[in-house]
């Protein structure tokens, strides 16, 4: 595995006379080196002979670091084959995946989906793999699969070789799918949350609708207890399901991270939703480790990365997010290799307006706690989120405390919002050929100017707003993008004054604050 893609590794085994010794070459890491001991025990426990000679195992290409336990099965097959204990050869173009237990049974390994995909792309036709991974691998069509629970089964399969019997052992991916009960369409997850449950907060709901429609990053700012977290948790529900290509990407990532879980696998269709705790390290967020593993940003690929209490995250972690937000992927450089993980996520975050949380909270209740923070403390709190990071968050929305319970209307529910998002998506997709991107949030430069054209009235409003509201200049492009999405939601080609006005309202941090 490299990043989220597989690399085909050839395992060569040579047995020569000499002192009994096994050496593995080709930059194996400890888990691969230990493979020898597992293989030796497994072979013995199957009643076969582990040759007492000089054995050399080469993992090619030899200059690439190998890690993980998925080579066990291939090494065992190699040793058996080289010592003439495998009755006949396995079919041509067969890939072996699997970790061995000491008794010879085969254990599941993570990342099988990516490996199977790589096998297909490299022209392999057969994949022998742990029985527990069978359904996962079957998501890749066009392969003949052999799920094995024990090393002995592999030996049997080899013995059967090209006979009729073998044809029955190997099954096509499509067969596996059929027997599992239909193609992978499950796992959309129960829609537990609905926006209809959120009373009031129409402004915030609309902002989230806009964010979902144009894939804009969003931060909600408001005093504690106003339902910011509740609002964002319902966000996946209004985003369209993953399409086939996206679903495969996402499922691959989760397979590598070992997060698919047991049971019959299916493509993940719902948008991933990751909400790491704010104590997470930079490595945990974007991926890292000696052998880099995907971080939360990658697990949130094609979905939502939710950072609750944004300023509480460490500065290092937040700054590390800048690259994925810009490039839509994470690059982790190590001395021997550079790993790339996809990280095309939508950032949704919440924050309090000040350290104590009550800044600006005086709606209705006179006895509500008052903000006791000095202006300097408030500024320091906001400064935790650096300008470049804030620049990448299109929507900054204030969520005020609702006036009182039971007064507010329910407003939009998830179903109706999802419908509108789908509509806005259609408009964006129709434009994507010309614009070069399928999301409004990624419009830039000329494409932005071309596709986010303002009506005369809107132009005037924007100019006036700049003059009298003290908007910052960097907000200009953001407002255009947002206005484009708002107009898409409205099913309009031209951006009108109302759309621009709404976009301006979503840029809470740009306005010069009213001092108290």
């Amino acid at each position, binding site marked *: 595995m490299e990043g989220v893609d597989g690399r085909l590794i050839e395992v060569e085994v040579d047995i020569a006379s000499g002192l009994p010794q096994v050496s593995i070459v080709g930059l194996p890491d400890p888990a691969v080196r230990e493979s020898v001991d597992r293989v030796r025990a497994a072979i013995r426990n199957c009643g076969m002979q582990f040759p007492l000679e000089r054995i050399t195992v080469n993992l090619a290409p030899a200059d690439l670091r190998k890690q993980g336990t998925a080579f066990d099965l291939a090494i065992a097959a190699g040793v058996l084959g080289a010592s003439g204990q495998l009755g006949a050869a396995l079919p041509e173009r067969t890939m072996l995946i699997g970790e061995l237990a000491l008794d010879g049974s085969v254990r599941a390994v993570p990342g099988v989906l990516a490996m199977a995909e790589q096998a297909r792309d490299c022209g392999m036709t057969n994949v022998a793999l742990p029985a527990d991974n069978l359904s996962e691998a079957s998501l890749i069509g066009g392969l003949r699969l052999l799920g094995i629970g024990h090393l002995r089964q592999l030996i049997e399969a080899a013995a059967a070789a090209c006979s009729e019997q073998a044809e029955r052992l190997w099954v096509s991916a499509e067969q596996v799918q059929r027997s599992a009960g239909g193609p992978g369409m499950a796992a959309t997850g129960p829609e537990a949350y609905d926006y209809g449950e959120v009373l009031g907060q129409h402004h915030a709901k609309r902002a989230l609708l806009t964010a979902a429609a144009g894939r804009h990053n969003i931060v909600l700012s408001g005093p504690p207890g106003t339902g910011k977290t509740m609002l964002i948790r319902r966000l996946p529900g209004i985003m369209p399901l993953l399409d086939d290509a996206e679903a495969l990407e996402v499922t691959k990532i989760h397979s590598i991270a070992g997060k698919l879980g047991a049971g019959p696998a299916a493509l993940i269709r719902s948008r991933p939703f990751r909400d790491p705790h704010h104590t997470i390290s930079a490595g945990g967020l974007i991926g890292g480790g000696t052998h880099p593993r995907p971080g939360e940003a990658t697990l949130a690929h094609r979905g939502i990365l939710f950072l609750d209490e944004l300023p509480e995250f460490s500065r290092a972690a937040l700054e590390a997010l800048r690259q994925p937000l810009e490039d839509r992927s994470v690059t982790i450089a190590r001395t021997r290799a550079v790993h790339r993980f996809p990280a095309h996520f939508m950032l949704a975050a919440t924050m309090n307006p000040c350290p104590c949380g009550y800044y600006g909270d005086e709606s209705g209740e006179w006895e509500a706690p008052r903000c006791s923070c000095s202006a300097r403390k408030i500024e320091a709190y906001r400064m935790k989120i650096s300008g470049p990071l804030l620049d990448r968050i299109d929507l900054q929305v204030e969520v*005020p405390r609702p006036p009182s319970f039971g007064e507010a209307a329910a407003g939009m529910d998830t179903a109706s919002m999802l419908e509108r998002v789908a509509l806005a998506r259609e408009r964006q997709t129709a434009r994507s050929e010309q614009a070069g991107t399928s999301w409004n949030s990624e419009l830039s430069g000329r494409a932005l100017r071309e596709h986010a054209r303002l009506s005369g009235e809107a132009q005037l409003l924007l100019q006036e707003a700049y003059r009298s509201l003290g908007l910052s200049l960097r907000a200009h492009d953001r407002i255009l993008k947002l206005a484009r999405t708002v107009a898409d939601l409205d099913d309009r080609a031209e951006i009108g004054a109302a759309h621009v006005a709404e976009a301006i309202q979503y840029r809470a941090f740009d306005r010069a604050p009213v001092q108290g």
Partner: protein
Amino acid sequence: MKEPVEWSERLVLLALHEAKGIGWRSIRKALASGSLVQCVHYAEAQWRELGLSGAQAASARSVLMHAEAAAASLERYARMGVRVITMLDDDYPELLRETHEPPWVLYAKGRVELLKTPALALVGTRTPSAYGRQATIRLARELAARGLTIVSGLAKGIDRCAHEGALTNGGATIAVLGTPIDIVYPAEHRALFACIAQQGLLVSEYPIGTRCHAGLFPQRNRIIAGLSVGTAVVEAAQRSGSLITVDHAITMNREVFAVPGPVQSRYSEGTHQLLKNGAKLLAEAEDVMEEFIHRPDILGRLQPSKSAPPPPETKLTGDEVRLLRLVREKPGTADELHERSGMPFGLLHAVLINLTIKRRIEQHPGFIYRAF
């Protein structure tokens, strides 16, 4: 070689005022003993005879050894653009001189002539509600337009609003600092500080180099009250520092005004108590004018600003008029206005932005809209 500097009464007063350990009372004792110039020659023993402690006497003796040091201090202030006004000067405000414990020396920066204009103190809590902020800004603006100088303490909250309100249409304002005149406290008021130094007047009793501490702030309240013909309070809790200013005003026999607040608010307790005790209710500038109707000494000196004609009434659309009426009825968030007006969001936002641009409403922290 410089000319030797001669001691003058003024210079002695300044030297003693800036001397370490010498307080307001010690200086009064020196003054009571006769001419200040004589004091220059006092030995420590003579100082002690006046009732000063040993340390104080030593301090007084040492600062009066060299007139050059005192003169150099004066020069330093001049270079910084700070006017030093002592009790002995004609520039010293008469109203303040009448008080019980007037500061011996004032350090001032800005339009010093404001000290001679009729002034009204406008003070209140440091954590105001939006209501308090708006009431203060409006009152300060209107009172300043009638020629009153608005005095306050450059603190957060109401003080700040009072200064800003007075300055909006070119009105006059005096900020009495609880710190030396070269220190901006709180630091976020830097811009306001600079603005007042230009268009208004900064005043402090404390020489540059005085260690700042919380105890200095209540002290300066007597100057706020002392400079003013009356003191008005907006939003003060039961034990607010603003009430100290009011106590000073009462002792000085000056007028006291209080702006009523919502009855549920903790920040109305102080002001409502004042009203019960006979303070004059202040709701609009006219309330202050009425109080001084029989005081030609005050009204006669007022120089109402040649009131700039109100900004030309920009035309409002039907929707804008409707929404403005709703906001005036009761301020609210966009959500509440959406529910109350029934306007679709796009339109609502456009109308809100337009009304903000036309300066009819204002967006406050917490996404609350209020009418001006």
